[in-house]
């Protein structure tokens, strides 16, 4: 954030949000959860798109505006969803600032995971969940820790290896002596040593206790809302927007000479050297939701697959380029949202890599 006031909430909304957080955290095992999203539609438009989605057949949704200040709006929402085994109701706040959208709730995990997250998913592609890399998580924590002069130590760590395989590092005992916990950079180092990436980390220090994850969720157990809003929620969306810029103007329809502009997804290690990994990549792609695909080449030594995204009728091909990288090749119509969705899927189910423009 360039301006020092950029991440500061207007006083009225700040008071509301901090009050919500305070009340929620007063409860036993209480926590405030923030889901971070990106949307260019205003909130009313977003809801009208949501109403046509399948999830609404088993859900009820209501909202009202409760605060408005310059480019920021706050809505109070109530949602009810009936699943096969239970009926869940709860409330949350939607805070929208330009293309940044945050859902904030102090409800229990059941509401969060069975109602709020599915609703957020159903908003795709009108709203897209922000997601970042393990490196981004490190940078966010580092900045927060330096600016506030707090030593952050970790209590829970979920790392993911290739194909989304997770490994955990958790301590559940009562924290009598914080010094017995390792500083957060150790978690990142350990994860990397085991060929994994940090997917979610819970840290504490000097009155703060919270977790952040690559899929853009902040869970607050202790601390005031505005700090988390400024150092994490906003940063999640900013970083995601920055990273997704690479997906812009890739459709051949959008380019004057109808060029083909591939993207290269580079991994840290020579993952495709191993034939079983290449084979597994085919399985991962064939399990991708809402798609049709066609395998152009499945044998050695490369994999080449066409993917048609049914969510917005766009397509792209992917091809292993060398042992270290995967090429994503946009086609006649390849939307930014379809590339964002697929890159998120690869992050979850395959491996974390860095995106660059392919230069022939």
């Amino acid at each position, binding site marked *: 954030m360039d301006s020092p006031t950029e991440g500061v909430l207007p006083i009225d909304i700040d008071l509301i949000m901090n009050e919500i957080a305070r009340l929620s955290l007063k409860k036993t095992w209480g926590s405030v959860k923030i889901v971070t999203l990106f949307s260019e539609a205003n909130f009313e438009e977003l809801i009208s798109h949501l109403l046509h989605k399948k999830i609404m057949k088993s859900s009820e949704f209501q909202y009202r505006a409760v605060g408005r200040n310059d480019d920021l709006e706050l809505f109070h929402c109530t949602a009810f969803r009936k699943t096969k085994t239970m009926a869940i109701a709860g409330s949350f706040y939607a805070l929208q600032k330009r293309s940044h959208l945050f859902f904030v709730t102090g409800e229990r995990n059941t509401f969060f995971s069975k109602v709020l997250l599915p609703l957020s998913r159903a908003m795709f592609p009108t709203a897209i969940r922000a997601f970042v890399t393990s490196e981004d998580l490190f940078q966010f924590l580092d900045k927060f820790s330096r600016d506030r002069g707090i030593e952050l130590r970790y209590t829970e760590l979920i790392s993911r290896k290739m194909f989304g395989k997770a490994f955990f590092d958790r301590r559940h005992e009562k924290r009598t002596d914080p010094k017995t916990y390792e500083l957060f950079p150790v978690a990142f180092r350990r994860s990397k040593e085991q060929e994994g990436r940090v997917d979610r980390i819970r840290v504490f220090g000097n009155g703060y206790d919270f977790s952040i994850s690559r899929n853009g969720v902040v869970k607050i157990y202790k601390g005031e809302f505005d700090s988390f809003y400024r150092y994490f929620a906003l940063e999640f969306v900013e970083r995601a927007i920055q990273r997704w810029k690479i997906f812009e103007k890739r459709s051949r329809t959008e380019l004057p000479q*109808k060029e083909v502009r591939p993207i290269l997804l580079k991994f840290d290690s020579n993952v495709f050297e191993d034939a079983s990994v290449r084979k597994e990549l085919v399985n991962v792609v064939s399990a991708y939701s809402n798609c*049709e695909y*066609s395998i152009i080449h499945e044998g*050695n030594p490369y994999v080449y697959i066409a993917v048609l995204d049914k969510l917005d*009728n766009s397509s792209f091909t992917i091809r292993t380029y060398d042992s270290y990288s995967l090429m994503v090749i946009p086609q006649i119509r390849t939307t930014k949202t379809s590339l964002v969705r697929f890159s998120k899927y690869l992050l979850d189910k395959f491996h974390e890599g860095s995106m660059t423009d392919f230069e022939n």
Partner: protein
Amino acid sequence: MSDREFEDCKQRRLIERQRYIQTVWLTLGLRHYLETRAKQCRFVSAEPIFHTEQGSEIRPDVVLQYDSNSGALCEIKTSFPIPDSLLLETLKQLEKYGQPVIGWGTNDLTVQHHDVMLFCDILDINRILPKIREWLDNGQLKIPENLVVCEWGIVQSPKIGDVILVRKRWGNARSEELNSLFNEDWVIDLRTLIIAYEKCRFTRKEPPVEYTMEQIWLYIFTKKTEKFEAFETSIEETLSIAYEYYLPWSNIRGEFSQVRETWIKKAMKAFCSIELAKQVTDDQSKYKVFRDKEIDKDFLGYIIERLCRKREESKLKQATEPDKEQRTMGDFQQLS
């Protein structure tokens, strides 16, 4: 159809599609190699139509121009029939290539001499080459112009990955430059052709109908709507999108475009036969496409399976049978 026949059908269609893709790659590879390595010998086109002096049409896969007086007509083969009689019949197509032909990129559309180049699959060459020599010697095969035979294949290079390998096996070209390039194997990294393949998906040979269906369904139809929903379209509209994105190799539209109207028509008929589309006018020009129909995620597997099931129906037979006027040597591979 028995299970065995059904499996054979699926396998055969997959192989035909794979062969077609390989032909596209080789054509791209030859163009790339000559553009980067040769100074005089030019890759002219991949969809030319030539005529013999008697007026019959010749459609070589690739045309090379050495200078204003000479060039080469090239034929790419991914397979040959096994029985000698069919093999000879296939090779006899080259006799037309060996006559003086009209259609070169010169002022009077002719050249003084030209070579005939045959690119045989690396797996066939040791069977085919002795036969060619035998039949040329005993006069069963008559090719008045100079014949050059090359082998080609997509092979694995431990350092690079998949490469196209081209090696001259018999004869000498009239181009000294080409002969000197033939002194070593041509190794073309497939990765250098990826972007070109996205724009050049068709050679002048008629593709298997499944291949055209894939191009239409997975790419061309994405331009129709922003939602995955049923829509109406016409042959004309589909063709115009294909023209726009799959540019002609020779940069001349119309007759020389990569995609032919007849191919699109056959693909649309095939879509109808497996209920992914329905004709809405009697003249077969307009169709309703059931884009949103729930089908298997593996699109190619889905259409091949259904096309094989429909194989016995005469409707599909018509849809997939190549045009009589476009029959070339390449079509004989289907007999093998």
